């Protein structure tokens, strides 16, 4: 029997990172994710790792850049306003094709916003977050167990594709406590012959760089990166399908919104409405195929979000006009209630999808 421990979501992320072989963590205090830094501060010195509280979010992400350039697994975490500050570093990591894991425990915005949960950094996360053409792999956990699993998967994917992986959590999933098992295998990091570990006078020098002044070379770098993205879209898009086989009303929701929606789906089913839930586990790449697969019997799609409607744009692209898509949301740190979602399902069922 696998041993389970009761942990907060944020702590599960930290422990999972350590189990993934991450020995370098840099962060700056911001609510609601400080448990990650606190956990790392306690554990890293005991296992020969590095915990360093950086002078800023900007410094933290650039310390990540340095460790990653030197070929080691490395992580930073923050919450929405802090992720904005890291945007520059995220772009440079992408430009230099460096792997790293970044956690965003989202809070309400814009600006300083609030400290309650949100999903309003969806655009920022799925479209890259900084300047230039690039993506991050964005993983959206909905339970403490999944926070652990997706953190480890994040390190593996980051190394495999030489890019950043973001754990797109929120204030609720980070704070809630659930039993979690760490009984899973971790893939060894691949060889990193490109890393700046010192030439040891045995090879030409490695250069980690994102500057290409010859436009043809910069263009080629972008094309190569996007060819890799196509492969990722094909292989790594992932969603949980809940009661979708015959669903006429399909909900799209990730993270905490998916947990609320699941309850609403159960209630709808109990009342004879064929409702189902598609829960994207990767929000980049977005699981388009999951949506295409339900279209033959779907009469309406509801996008349940803690934002003013961000994921709904990806849902609309996936559904491509073949079913109406409606937003069900709360923002500013508010969470839609199961009742609100249930009522939206009832409403959609009444309209029969029109």
């Amino acid at each position: 029997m696998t041993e389970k421990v009761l942990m907060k979501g944020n702590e599960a992320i930290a422990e999972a990172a350590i189990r993934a072989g991450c020995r370098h963590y840099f962060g700056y205090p911001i609510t609601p994710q400080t448990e990650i830094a606190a956990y790392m501060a306690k554990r890293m010195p005991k296992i020969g790792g590095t915990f360093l509280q950086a002078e800023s979010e900007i410094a933290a992400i650039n310390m990540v850049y340095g460790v990653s350039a030197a070929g080691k697994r490395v992580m930073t975490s923050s919450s929405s306003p802090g992720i904005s500050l890291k945007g520059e570093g995220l772009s440079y990591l992408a430009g230099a094709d460096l792997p790293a894991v970044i956690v965003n425990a989202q809070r309400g915005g814009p600006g300083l916003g609030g400290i309650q949960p949100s999903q309003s950094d969806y655009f920022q996360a799925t479209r890259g977050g900084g300047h230039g053409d690039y993506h991050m792999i964005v993983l959206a956990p909905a339970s403490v167990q999944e926070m652990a699993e997706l953190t480890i998967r994040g390190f593996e994917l980051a190394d495999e594709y030489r890019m950043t992986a973001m754990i797109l959590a929120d204030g609720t999933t980070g704070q809630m406590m659930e039993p979690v098992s760490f009984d899973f295998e971790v893939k060894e990091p691949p060889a990193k012959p490109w890393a700046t570990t010192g030439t040891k006078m045995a090879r030409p020098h490695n250069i980690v760089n994102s500057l290409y002044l010859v436009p043809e070379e910069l263009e080629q770098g972008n094309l190569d990166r996007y060819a890799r993205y196509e492969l990722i879209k094909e292989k790594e898009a992932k969603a949980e399908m809940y009661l979708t086989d015959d669903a006429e009303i399909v909900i799209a929701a990730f993270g905490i919104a998916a947990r609320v929606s699941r309850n609403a789906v159960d209630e709808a089913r109990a009342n004879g409405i064929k409702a189902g839930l598609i829960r994207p586990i990767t929000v980049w790449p977005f699981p388009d195929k999951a949506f295409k697969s339900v279209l033959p019997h779907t009469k309406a799609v509801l996008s349940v979000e803690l934002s003013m409607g961000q994921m709904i744009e990806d849902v609309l692209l996936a559904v491509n006009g073949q079913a109406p898509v409606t937003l069900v949301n709360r923002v500013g740190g508010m969470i839609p209630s199961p009742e609100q979602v249930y009522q939206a399902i009832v409403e959609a069922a009444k309209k029969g999808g029109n």
Partner: protein
Amino acid sequence: MTVFERPKSLADIPMHYCPGCTHGIVHRLVAEVIDELGIEGRTVGIAPVGCSVMAYDYFTCDMIEAAHGRAPAVATGVKRSDPDNLIVFTYQGDGDLASIGTAETVHAAARNENITIVFINNAIYGMTGGQMAPTSLPGQVTQTSPYGRDVNACGYPVKVCEMLSELDGPEYLERVTVNNVRNVRNAKRAIKKAFQNQIDKKGFSLIEVLSSCPTNWGMTPEKALQWIDEKMIPYYPLGVYKDRSAGIGPMYKKEAAE
């Protein structure tokens, strides 16, 4: 008999620097020091954004190009990845180190991060075509201070060595220049000490090098070297501002006075 040759750790390719610019001299000094200390194979250099952005092509050790001003943070990451083996240096200009990257500089110094910083102070933004730098002198004419730097409107220059010397953290801070042979030899001594300190695990060493920018100063190379003597050194006096191991620094003076 060979009497003079290119340092091994300096790549045999043309540099992009303007005629008369002192970056070439300082690159050579860094490379000579790396050669003499026998550390090329375990050295990682961090290039900045600015005129020396392409320094990654010129040194034969492993190199990283950092975002503008972030080199000390990147260096911190690299150093912490393998603190017992790697030798890490940054090479930064005044806009990079003393303006957009001030926080990274100050905090790497405060942590006594065991890295070496070579800081080129030429009192101007060279790469972007001669704008006012944090170190431009009062009254200095630049593209963005066409009537001369007005200290009432844009404040005073940042004196990096003086500022950092007040921190308990850093091991070694020295200001040198490379405008004549004697000064070049002295600069090499300082840079070598800054690398040796890191090998000896003493901590943060920063060498500020007063440098010339004939192109953007609008001077001949010769006149630019004179301008360092006449204008820069009086504002930025040369010397050791902190040497913790030798008990040199403002805090030690205070102790002595008490």
